[in-house]
């Protein structure tokens, strides 16, 4: 319990730092957001009025304080009939888009959610299957093909892959639309048609990392004593593969969690190339137009999503790896004892001595531009 509270507190601290840093970076930058609200031609008094109205006329710490306070208490800009109200949780108001940032994010999040869920499912399935398959016969032609494709995918710039996919599927064989988004509630078929290409592109780009991770870990697992023992005991290769794969659940989950958080926060380039109105496109446009409230708001929400996804992965870990659950129950025990009591034994009965299946930490990775 205390551990959980500690974690939550650390997560909160991360979020506060993210907000403060984003605010300060853009505040210290040379841009003046009020210029966009002054008419043309812009009279000096109009510019002053615009700054005051937007709340950009006070020092950064005071603006930051007002921003954080508004998350809990809401705020309003201007006065009288035309005051712009922003109810709690207020993440600021976009004067360029005429909407509270929370409303904008509320509109964009379902799009990013749709992109993320499809991409995650596809990339995990494709990546794990390809990695496991190629690990079965290292250095075979199939293995080389998978490894080669994953190198290409991991190093290709997302916009190139996206544009190539459009050229191939949309222009060459007019099969799919070139871009745009149709809400699920309007037309399921069109929703699917508009999302297939982005899903495939993201799955290709991000799936490469899964394939490489699974392949190398599987090869390592398959060389371990418990596998040899299992083979000697006459288990089928198929079952052995399953045992080895189960030991990869933890690192793959960690990766999925990271990707989920990042994809929910928006995929800047994929969304732009495919004309999808998600969080990434919102952030990109806000950056181009110095829409400071939107920049800070989307960054904060993106950070919350990543922190939450990691937290979820941590909570899931004991379910996926019994050793962690038992370590928690009996802790602090030595890791050797924990390992001894843990999984390989449960997988391959009778080989209790086996197994340092240390979960492989996720490698540093190429992620398609999480915002």
């Amino acid at each position, binding site marked *: 319990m205390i551990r959980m509270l500690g974690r939550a507190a650390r997560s909160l601290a991360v979020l506060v730092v993210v907000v403060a840093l984003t605010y300060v970076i853009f505040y210290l930058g040379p841009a003046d957001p009020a210029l966009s609200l002054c008419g043309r*031609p812009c009279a000096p008094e109009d510019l002053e009025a615009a700054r005051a109205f937007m709340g950009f006329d006070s020092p950064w710490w005071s603006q930051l304080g007002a921003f954080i306070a508004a998350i809990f208490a809401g705020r309003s800009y201007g006065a009288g009939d035309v005051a712009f109200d922003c109810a709690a949780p207020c993440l600021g108001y976009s004067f360029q*888009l005429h909407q509270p940032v929370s409303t904008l994010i509320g509109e964009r999040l379902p799009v990013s959610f749709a992109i993320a869920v499809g991409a995650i499912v596809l990339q995990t399935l494709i990546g794990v299957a390809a990695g496991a398959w190629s690990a079965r016969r290292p250095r075979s032609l199939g293995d080389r093909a998978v490894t080669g494709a994953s190198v290409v995918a991991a190093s290709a710039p997302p916009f190139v892959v996206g544009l190539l996919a459009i050229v191939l599927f949309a222009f060459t064989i007019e099969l799919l639309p070139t871009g745009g988004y149709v809400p699920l509630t309007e037309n399921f078929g069109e929703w699917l048609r508009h999302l297939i290409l982005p899903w495939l592109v993201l799955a290709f780009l991000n799936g490469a990392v899964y394939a490489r991770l699974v392949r190398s870990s599987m090869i390592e697992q398959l060389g371990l004593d418990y596998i040899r023992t299992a083979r000697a005991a006459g288990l089928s290769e198929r079952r052995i593969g399953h045992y080895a794969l189960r030991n990869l659940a933890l690192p793959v989950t960690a990766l999925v969690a990271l990707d989920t958080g990042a994809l929910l926060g928006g995929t800047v380039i994929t969304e732009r190339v495919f004309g999808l109105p998600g969080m990434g496109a919102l952030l990109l*446009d806000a950056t181009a137009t110095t829409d400071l409230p939107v920049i800070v708001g989307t960054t904060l929400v993106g950070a919350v999503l990543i922190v939450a996804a990691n937290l979820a992965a941590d909570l899931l870990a004991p379910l996926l790896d019994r050793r962690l659950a038992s370590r928690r129950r009996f802790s602090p025990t030595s890791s050797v004892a924990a390992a001894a009591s843990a999984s390989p034994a449960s997988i391959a009965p009778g080989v209790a001595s086996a197994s340092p299946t240390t979960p492989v930490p996720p490698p540093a990775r190429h992620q398609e531009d999480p915002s």
Partner: protein
Amino acid sequence: MNRPIRRSRTLLGAGALAITAALALAGCSAGGNGADGSDGSGGTGGTLTIYTTAQDVEFDPATSQNLAVTTLGLTARRLTAWRTSPDAPTEVVPDLATDTGTPSEDGKVWTFTLKEGLKLADGTPITSETVKYGLERSFAPELSGGLTYHKVLLEGGDDYAGPFSGEHLDSIETPDDQTIVFHLNRPYGDFPWVASTPAFAPVPEDAGDPKTYATEAISSGPYSIEKYSAGNEVVLERNDEWDPDSDDVRVGGPDEIVFKLAQDSSVVAQSLIADRTDAQDAFLATFVPPAQLVQAQHDPKVGDRLVTSGPGALEYLAMNTQSPALSDVRVRQAIEYAVDKSAYRTAKGGEISGDYATTLITPGIAGRQEYSLYGDDPAGDVDRAQALLDEAGATDLTLRLVVTDDRVTAAEAIQEGLKRAGISVEIQSLDQAAWAAEVTAGDGSAYDLTLSSWQPDIPSANANIQPLFESSQIGNGNYNLARYDEPEVDAAILDASSTVDAEEAGAKWAAVDRRILEDAPVVPLIYSRNSFLHGSGVADFTIGEFPAYPNYLTVTLAR
């Protein structure tokens, strides 16, 4: 097209300056070059799709900077409108009013009479009161961001803060439902043009929440907003209250117009080049990106679906006259000779990107006189430049050229040109917002030279010159980027803009043009041409002599 920063407002069709290509996206387009991109007479009906890189469209007349012939013109009529033609100067014509306004003897009082029987989309009659209320709204600080030309002209406008506090602006009189009278603080010859800017659209007093009016504005034009989804799409459908017989400038061709927002211009341009089934009844409101422009020029499938405007916005090199290095007029004149305009145009994409410029007033604007103060060779005259530098005693000159990051290649062409005369140039590139803050705002100490372009909000010499050279337009986000402050020129601008007789005013503006260039605050580089693509189902896609954007109001679909 216009300015960078406000992407949205500006973009979709807005007005003035063309600073970044990126921004430009949004909106405006143009065709020209004699350009009639249409392949025949269009009929009515169908759904026209307009692709844009902008993520929103501004439909509140108070906050819009749209040109009279682009997006806002589809939903908002004003007192006057523009009639554009590829081979004749753009004219100001009556729209809601029966004529283009009657000035008093001294040019300070302008009277308009509204046509009878016009209605807004909700059935409210369009009266002088609704036009007055629309204008009053534009004074509210909460609804700032639009074109403000009227705000500095109307008497008492300085102290007026909009109608929401119950105050009204007395300098707009509405003696009866059809008559509206404007009292200006000085004579102003271009007032008929000013009356075509967005704020002169009618807004009923019970129009609803001013905060959300931008997405649910009550239409007076052929289309009403049916759906508004920022960052995704806007759907316009027919406004049945619009009377085509009362409107000489809008065709109201398609039954429905859909704006696809936040698009990638390269992807859309590819779709249009390929003439995909879903892109045939569509055009791209953003300029065609350079790579696709080259492709489209050489693809026989494209043909006249690529429409290029005539010479439009002035692209120029501004010399900061307040920078110590450039305070001597001879140094600035030397730069006029040293710049290589042909290298600049090559960097911008060659001949299709524009014609060489030598004047401040752009082609297609009444009163323009062609002249060239600094030689006729676009490659420049290095010897003259060196002689002037020697005379000024300027040696080892090093200048900072601050540009937006989409203009770096063009900046390098300037750098190479000046190097020939021994002037070294350091290029600093900034993103649009930072550039605006350092160059259009700021104290001017951050740059010696900068590149910019200017497309006037209305087709008049005044709108060409005043925003770039009057001393009141220095800093605060305005566009006197040379920080040129010459009382004699300020007085001449005031005098010319106060002249009501068009011919007399034209002669005065031509004189001001030449007078300013004698002081060499800017080097005119090219009058840029904008290129646009449309699908095979789009007809009547034309770009007038002004502005260098297509006229959305007359586009139809070939059926």
